[in-house]
């Protein structure tokens, strides 16, 4: 099944994320990753969804049925910049630390914490690069790992500014906000 990257703008209301997730689940699509946060416009969130589906057009149409979903784009075949971040707590006794440090510098990863026998490494990159890095450090012994999921942005002037879709109110804030 093909993996698709979908970027969506959501009206920032309570429960909107669980609506999106519930819909994806009950329509039987598989979520590979999901990342969501504020966009450039107050009151609007931007979400990146990586989903496995034979029929991505249906996924997009179903998402549009949700009242708070403002704009959905399948950016899989668009020129995009994609990034993911991971934090890895690695088994790192003093003897191997040098090796690990040089590996990190090759991948542009940063060491953000050092304990007696562990290191926490932060690494940001394309999903593929993150994957490679994980494989490279795995032999040392990964104690904990956390990944943010992918975020994607379309290059150049394409893509959508959230302010196109919401109207500013007189007091400077952007409407629709209940709560």
């Amino acid at each position: 099944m093909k993996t698709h990257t979908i970027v969506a703008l959501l009206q920032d209301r309570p429960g909107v994320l669980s609506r999106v997730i519930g819909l994806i689940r009950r329509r039987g699509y598989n979520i590979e990753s999901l990342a969501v946060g504020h966009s450039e416009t107050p009151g609007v969130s931007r979400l990146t969804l990586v989903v496995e589906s034979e029929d991505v057009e249906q996924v997009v149409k179903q998402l549009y049925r949700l009242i708070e979903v403002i704009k959905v784009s399948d950016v899989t075949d668009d020129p995009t910049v994609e990034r993911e971040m991971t934090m890895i707590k690695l088994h790192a006794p003093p003897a191997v630390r040098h090796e690990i440090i040089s590996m990190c510098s090759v991948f542009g990863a940063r060491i953000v914490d050092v304990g007696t026998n562990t290191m926490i490494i932060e690494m940001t990159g394309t999903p593929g690069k993150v994957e490679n890095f994980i494989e490279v450090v795995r032999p040392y012994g990964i104690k904990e790992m956390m990944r943010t999921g992918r975020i994607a942005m379309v290059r150049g002037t394409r893509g959508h500014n959230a302010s196109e879709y919401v109207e500013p109110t007189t007091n400077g804030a952007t409407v629709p906000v209940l709560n």
Partner: protein
Amino acid sequence: MTKPLTGAQIMCEALIREGVEVMFGIPGGAIMPFYYAMWDYRDRLRHVLCRHEQGAGHAAEGYARATGKIGVCIGTSGPGATNLVTPIADAMMDSTPLLAITGQVGSHVLGKDAFQETDITGITMPITKHNYLVKNVDELPYVFKEAIYIATTGRPGPVLIDITKDAMQKTTVPNWDIKLNLPGYKPTYQGNRRQIREAIKLLISAKKPLIIAGHGIIMSGAHRELQEFAERLRIPVITTLHGIGAIPENHPLCIGMPGMHGWVHVNRAIQECDVLFNIGGRFDDRVTGKASTFAPHARIIHVDIDPSEIGKNVRVDVPIVGDARLVLQALLEDLPPPSELAELHTHASDWMEHIREMQDKHQGKQQYKNRAAMANMALPPHDVYEALSRTLNARGNYRVVTDVGQHQMWAAQLIDWNAGPRTHITSGGAGTMGFAVPAALGVAIACPNDTVWAIVGDGGFQMTNQEMATIVQEGLKNIKVAVINNGYLGMVRQWQELFEHKRYSGTPLSGPNFAKLAEAYGWKGLTVERSEDVQDAIDEAYATDGPVLIDFRVEREVNVFPMVPQNKSIGEMILSESQA
């Protein structure tokens, strides 16, 4: 208005502002503030006390389906709210504009498993078009306006508003100066003009064109436009279960119902047609059978107001997103003059002749028209329908609500539906047994000048018949119930007979004496066991100034034919002997 009002008063005001006149519900702890406020509005907002929240929900659905206006139902928190789940799901499947109002525990205990707390917004998320949890009294005017707007526009559907008790009790000066902010909700009503011209091109070049008229025709009030369009092109029209009434069945272009229990000539026509124009239907699997084998030779034009329906179940060549009525108007405007339609007309009339020949061969020998096939039965169900059809059409001013099962399919097949839109109301998408009696209550309130018939199985009747008491309490006299009593969960028994070696597990069904039960509720109750008594009973029901139940004790093991087995092509039908 600058007077402070309680949240509950604001709810009443908001409903009145939106034109709501009737609500169906049951009170309880969390919703009591609303009922307290309702007292002052009782001459403008009629509250109908139902006997079960499911009944309240279906009654609101019946009201909505009969009028096109929003139906409103009310329940308290916890069990009151969960009892509304079935009608909400039903309304979702049948695109019924429904507003469900539920009370919720106080906001200070929300999330603490307080008495009668249930996360009803969580539960109903997948079965509502949208829902709200309101904790702040100031949000009420906005939320009610938005909720009703969403429920009634685009593809209609159910919306639930869950309101904490304290939000109903607190006071505020309501702000009615509301501008809806819905950047993500912009239904498309006008069809794309280029696609419309594309559709016309396809239709004009067709040799075997067909129209499928679905629920969208009824909901958008497009029946006149549909008829004119079909007449100008002379294309045969199929009506789906929810499309019944889109065009009168005695119209020369109407050929009847397709699908699992559709007519042979209709299903065969679909399998033969070269252009299929579906307007307002969603290619439900009960219509298409095995979707990959559906209409194999057809180029398909699909009009739907919900873009996600287009291409969901069958491939579509010309998609048109829009309101059925506006799209038909645009199609009519763009039609070429009759001179350019001559070729289509010739093909269409040959085609129609062919369809009618198939019809004469099969449907002409309908069981009820072929008494010989049922000579040994005291009361074949078909005799009930024949008499009902004759009487309804002779007397006029009727609405029929059906439940779910064999009796529902017989009603769709055997009654001559000549009286236009919103005269046939049933639970289609969800197939909810127990729909008919409470929905008929809602229809009877909406249509006081019509006689409302509920046609219901002995199984479904026993799910919600307590609403007979509501009907009496509300003084409704225009309801007649026909129980098609076969002593079985008949439709399931039919599947067991045909596909499961007659293993009748859990389908033989007993019941009380329905006529006596009706009498106990203050109705007139009649029992009919022989064909020769059917008409008299129906006439007596009409002559009685009050609700009447007729218990038709029909032959027990009769099947609905034709039948397309589940997941088979609609070309593969099981027929009764007389239809083959």
